C-alpha cells in the first residue's frame, strides 16, 4: 500500500465544486441516517454513539482521503471528533438553559419576585408567595462579603504585581490553591468558629463563610487587570515624585478601573450561588429580614435547595423559579463583565478603518 502512487496533493488549491458536494453529502448523510433510525424507533443514545458517530467518521475520512490522501483520514476523524465533543458540551449547556427557562417561567411573575414565603405551603398556588425575602438576604450577605473582600483582593493583587518578595510565588500558588476550597469546608470552618467562640448563627456568619471562596477570584482577576497597566505609567508617576501609594490610587487604579470592576463582578458571580456554606451557617427564614447581624435570614440558594427535594409540583416550580431568578442575576453580572472587559481596540476599530480609507 505504501508504494501506491500518492494522489496529487495541493493544499493551496481551492476546493472545487464536486469536492464541495462531497463534503456537503458527507456532513448531511450520517445525520439523515441517524434521524431516520430514531424515527423508526431505535434507541436514540445507541443511534448517536453506535451509528451516527462511526458513519460520520467514516464519511469524513473518505472525503479526507479523496482530498488530501492518507493524511486526510486522520484529519477528518479529528475534525469530526472535536466537533462532536464540543457540541456535546454545548448541548448540555443548552439543556440547562432551556430547562431553566421553560420550567422557571411557570413560576416567574412580579409577585414571585417581590413577595416572601410566609403562609406558603406545598399546595399554595404559585400566585402567592415568592423569593423577595431571599433576594434581599442574598444581596445583603453577598454585599457585605464584597465590601470586605474587594479591598483585600486588590491589596493582594498589588502585592503580587509590585512586591519583590521571594515568597510572592508561594502566595500566588496558595491563593490559587484556595480557589479550589470545597464550599462545604468554608461553611464548616465558620461553623467551627461559631462553636468555638459561642457565637450565634446569622447572616454575617454566611458572609464570613463566603469570603474565602470569593477572595482568590478577586485577587487573580485584579492581578491580571493591574498587570495590563503599562509599567511605564507607574514609573512615570514615580519619576514625577509621587509616592507609591499615590501612584497607585491616582494612576494605576483609574487605568485598571474596568478590570477591577470585572474582578468584583466575577467574584460576586462566583459566590452568589454558593449553597453549602450558607446552609451550614445561616438559619433560614420564611419572612423578610433586613438584619444580617442576628436572627434568621433567607438566601436564594437556600430557598432553591429547600424546595428542590419536594414531591409537590408547585414546590418544584418554586425551586425552578428561584433558580431562574438566581440565573438572571448571574447573567446580568456576567454580561456586564463581558462588556467591561472587551478590549478597547475593538471600540476604536471603526475610526481606524475610516482613517485608512
Amino acid at each position, binding site marked *: 500500500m505504501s508504494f501506491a502512487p500518492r494522489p496529487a496533493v495541493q493544499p493551496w488549491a481551492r476546493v472545487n465544486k464536486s469536492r464541495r458536494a462531497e463534503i456537503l453529502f458527507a456532513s448531511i448523510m450520517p445525520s439523515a441516517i441517524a434521524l431516520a433510525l430514531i424515527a423508526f424507533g431505535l434507541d436514540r443514545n445507541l443511534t448517536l454513539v453506535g451509528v451516527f458517530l462511526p458513519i460520520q467518521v467514516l464519511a469524513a475520512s473518505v472525503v479526507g482521503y479523496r482530498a488530501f490522501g492518507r493524511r486526510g483520514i486522520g484529519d477528518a476523524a479529528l475534525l469530526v471528533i472535536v466537533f462532536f465533543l464540543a457540541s456535546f458540551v454545548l448541548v448540555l449547556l443548552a439543556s440547562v438553559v432551556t430547562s431553566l427557562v421553560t420550567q422557571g417561567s411557570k413560576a416567574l411573575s412580579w409577585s414571585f419576585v417581590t413577595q416572601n414565603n410566609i403562609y406558603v405551603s406545598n399546595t399554595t398556588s404559585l400566585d402567592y408567595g415568592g423569593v423577595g425575602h431571599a433576594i434581599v438576604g442574598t444581596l445583603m450577605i453577598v454585599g457585605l462579603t464584597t465590601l470586605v473582600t474587594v479591598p483585600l483582593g486588590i491589596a493582594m493583587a498589588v*502585592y503580587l504585581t509590585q512586591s519583590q518578595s521571594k515568597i510572592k510565588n508561594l502566595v*500566588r500558588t496558595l491563593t490559587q490553591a484556595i480557589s*479550589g476550597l470545597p464550599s462545604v*469546608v468554608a461553611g464548616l470552618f465558620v*461553623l467551627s468558629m461559631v462553636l468555638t467562640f459561642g457565637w450565634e448563627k446569622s447572616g454575617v456568619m454566611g458572609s464570613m463563610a463566603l469570603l474565602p471562596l470569593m477572595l482568590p477570584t478577586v485577587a487573580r482577576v485584579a492581578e491580571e487587570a493591574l498587570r495590563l497597566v503599562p509599567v511605564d505609567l507607574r514609573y512615570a508617576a514615580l519619576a514625577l515624585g509621587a509616592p507609591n501609594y499615590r501612584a*497607585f490610587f491616582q494612576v494605576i487604579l483609574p487605568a485598571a478601573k474596568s478590570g477591577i470592576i470585572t474582578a468584583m463582578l466575577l467574584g460576586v458571580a462566583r459566590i452568589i450561588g454558593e449553597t453549602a456554606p450558607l446552609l451550614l451557617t445561616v438559619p433560614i427564614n420564611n419572612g423578610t429580614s433586613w438584619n444580617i447581624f442576628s436572627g434568621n435570614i433567607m438566601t436564594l440558594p437556600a430557598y432553591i435547595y429547600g424546595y428542590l427535594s419536594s414531591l409537590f409540583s408547585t414546590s418544584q416550580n418554586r*425551586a425552578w423559579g428561584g433558580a431562574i431568578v438566581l440565573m438572571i442575576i448571574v447573567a446580568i453580572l456576567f454580561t456586564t463583565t463581558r462588556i467591561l472587559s472587551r478590549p478597547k481596540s475593538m471600540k476604536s476599530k471603526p475610526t481606524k478603518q475610516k482613517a485608512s480609507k
Partner: protein
Amino acid sequence: MSDSSAPKTAPARRKLSAGPLSTGDKWFFRSTSVAAYSAFVLVAFILLFLFLQAAPAITSQGISFITGSTWDNTAEPIVMQIGPMIWGSILIGAVGVVIATPLAIALAYLIVYMLPNRLASLATNLVDLLAALPSVIIGLWGLFVFSPVAAEWGAALNAYLGWFPLFNVSSADNGFSGSPFIAGWIVAIMIVPIITSITREVFSQLDRDLINGALALGGSRLSTLRRVILPTSSGAIVGGVLLGLGRALGETVAIFYVLQLTFDFNWGQILEPKGGAVASMILAKFGEANASEVSGLMASGLVLFVITLIINFFASVIVNRAQPWRKN
C-alpha cells in the same frame, strides 16, 4: 534610558520629595503585605478551627475514622467511619476527570485552532457561562433533567458492556440512578470550564512557529496535535486536570440529590448506587447531627480540606510552572 540625552550642565541637586521609605509608602506596602499574608492566615485558621472542633471525634475514632465503613450514631460509644465516602469522592472525581478531559481538550482545540475569531470568542463566553452556573442550579437540573437521561446511558452501558467489571451491576432493579457514574457526569460538567480555560490559554500561547513548522514539514492537523501541541502543553493540561479534580472532590450541592449515600465501599462498580462523597455526606448528616456527630463532620471536613489543598497546591505549582509568561 541613560543614553537619551547627555546633561550639559549638572542641575542643582534637589531633595527628593518621595522615596520608598516615605511614611505613606511604608503603610501602603505594609498593608498590601498583610493582605497577601492573609492567604496563609486563612489556611492556618481553617486548619486550626476545624481541628479544634474535630479533635473529640479524631481521638475517639482513631485511624479507623478514614478506613472503616460504619456510621452508627445509636451505638454507645458512637461509631463514625467515613472510608467509603472518601473512596467515593475519589471515584466520582476520577469518573468526572475521565469524562471532562477529552471534552475540555476538544473545546480548547476547537476554540484556538479551528474557529474564526468571532465564533471563538462566542465559544469562550459560552464555556465561561457554564463556569458561572451556580452549583445549586446544576443540582436542580441534574435531579430533574439530566439524571433520567444519564440513567439511560448507564443502562445502555450495562447492557452492551456489562461484561467489563467497571460497568457491572449486582441488580438492575434500581434503574441505574444514584450511581457514581451520574454524579461523575455532573461533576464533569462543572470542571470542563476549568480544564478548558487553562488548556485554551496554554494552546493560544504556544509558539505559532512550531505549529507552522510542523505543518510545513508535511504534518497533518492530527500529527501536529499529537506530536507538537499536546507534548508541549501537557504540563499545563495535567495541572488543569488536577485543579479540576480538586474541584470535583469538593463538589457538594450539585451531586447531593443525584447520589445515593451508603456506607459501603464501592470498588469501581460505577453504575451501582453504592458509596457516596464526603461533601455530600457532610450536608446530609448535618441536619440532625448531635454534638459528637458534628465533631465527626468537622473531622470529615478536615480530611476533605487536607486532600483538596494538597491536590490544588500541586496543581497550582504545575500550572504556574507551565505558564512562564504569567511570571513577571
